[in-house]
């Protein structure tokens, strides 16, 4: 079976600085794959290259098709949605408008909205409020909900737990686990390695723009190197 996402020899440069150096990995349909690594290891750059937000070298294949010539906005229509780091909701738009713009590529917005609001009842109470007035946790729900509006086949999440209280982190991860069970494919970048590894099927560990380790999440969880560097032992 061909993987839903196949990244090979991916490079990302910011001017003279190489953020990602020839990274190759794959995500199979229905999997949760986690990218671990310290700040600056190139995790976010990989997600941005996959969603088309930044230019990159190498190849990104989605459902077997090369995305090189496909601009970011068309990747959404093909089924790639990206929840960016720091949530980045539109503070001047209402909660409802934030969701509606997430569903730009969809035609039956009403049922998509209904579906997302069932997942996040908190957002339903705040539909007409402006996005900027939400709490951090609600903003994260909105960012995820906004991405789900496009009915993605592959959901990219960049630090979904960032800046949230432990309780909210647990909530967000249980949501992601539900998405996984419902058959969605997730590629997650996360600092909270312990949480991420319990959710993931497989993981890749990045260091200075290169993949240093990879394997099943359970194996990596027991790997002494990973335990020392990312699990605080």
């Amino acid at each position, binding site marked *: 079976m061909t993987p839903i996402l196949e990244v090979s020899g991916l490079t990302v440069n910011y001017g003279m600085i190489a953020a990602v150096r020839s990274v190759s990995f794959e995500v199979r349909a229905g999997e949760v794959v986690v990218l671990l690594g310290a700040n600056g290891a190139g995790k976010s750059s990989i997600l941005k290259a996959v969603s088309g937000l930044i230019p990159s070298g190498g190849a990104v294949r989605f459902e077997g098709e090369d995305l090189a010539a496909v601009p970011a906005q068309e990747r959404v229509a093909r089924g790639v949605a990206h929840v960016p780091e720091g949530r980045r909701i539109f503070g001047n738009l209402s909660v409802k408008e934030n969701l509606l713009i997430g569903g730009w590529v969809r035609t039956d917005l009403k049922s998509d909205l209904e579906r997302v609001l069932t997942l996040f009842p908190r957002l339903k109470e705040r539909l007409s409020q402006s996005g*900027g007035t939400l709490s951090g946790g609600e903003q994260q729900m909105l960012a995820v909900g906004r991405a789900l509006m496009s009915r993605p086949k592959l959901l990219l999440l960049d630090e979904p737990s960032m800046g949230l209280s432990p309780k909210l982190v647990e909530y967000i991860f249980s949501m992601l686990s539900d998405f996984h069970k419902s058959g969605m494919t997730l590629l997650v970048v996360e600092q909270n390695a312990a949480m991420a590894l319990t959710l993931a099927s497989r993981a890749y560990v990045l260091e200075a723009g290169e993949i240093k380790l990879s394997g099943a999440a359970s194996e990596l969880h027991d790997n002494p190197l990973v335990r020392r560097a990312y699990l605080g032992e």
Partner: protein
Amino acid sequence: MIYFFQQALNALQLGSMYALIALGYTMVYGVLSMINFAHGDFFMVGAFLCFVGASRLHLSFVPVLLLSMGGVTLLGVATERIAYRPLRNAPKVSAIITALGVGIFLENFTLGLNPYPKYVPPLLPSFSFNFGGVSVSSFQLATIGISIGLMLALHLIVNKTKAGLAMRAISADRTIVPLMGVPVDKIIALTFALGSGLGGAAGVMYAMAYPVIDPYIGIIVGWKAFISAVIGGIGDIRGAVLGAYILGTVEIMTAAFLPSTYRDLITFSLLLVLLIFRPRGLLGRAEIQKV
């Protein structure tokens, strides 16, 4: 008192014209964080198209208005495509210098075609109504009525349509809008189209009020409209309209009750004082970024 109301009506007319132009500045700033300094010259081209339509093609008012709006719309979209889009990610100053260059080009191109001031014949039958001593001319009525109509239409587009939603999203956070599946280039082109079209309409309003036009009319009128947008809070659509009516009122009332040579002195002083106390304008809000 009648004199005051008469002047208030003039203020409404001038403010309407400024508002149409100020909207172009503020909309482009909203989506690109760039001041399109050629916008005043877009307005001038609108006035010249009005001249061409009225005096050469002998068109009546509505076709002339459509000609000016349509022509300037195309000009705005073409300028964005050719001159600004390649500089989208360049330093801001490059785009601003380019905009100034486009403006100078348009002035000199128009000058090169025919270097004499033009007289625009009246587009509407000249008559006036009398409301308790205040006389309202057909030109004033058309200017104010059409301006308000266009502004309402713009309000609906920005707040009630999908494209308008995308414009507002782009003005909040342009870099991530592609992740929503929104074709950002198309929305930016549409923003230029709308802003420029309104500028073209303002050119017609100007030619009706001041029928002798030359290629440099866009400079000072453009600056005044730009100031209107800054007073209201640049990037904010309601702000541009508010600022324009404030500026129109200040200008007319200064000329009406003080020596008229004080007009620009007071206008620009108003801008300076306002910027000291409200650097983001009346309706502009500080940018808050939650991390």
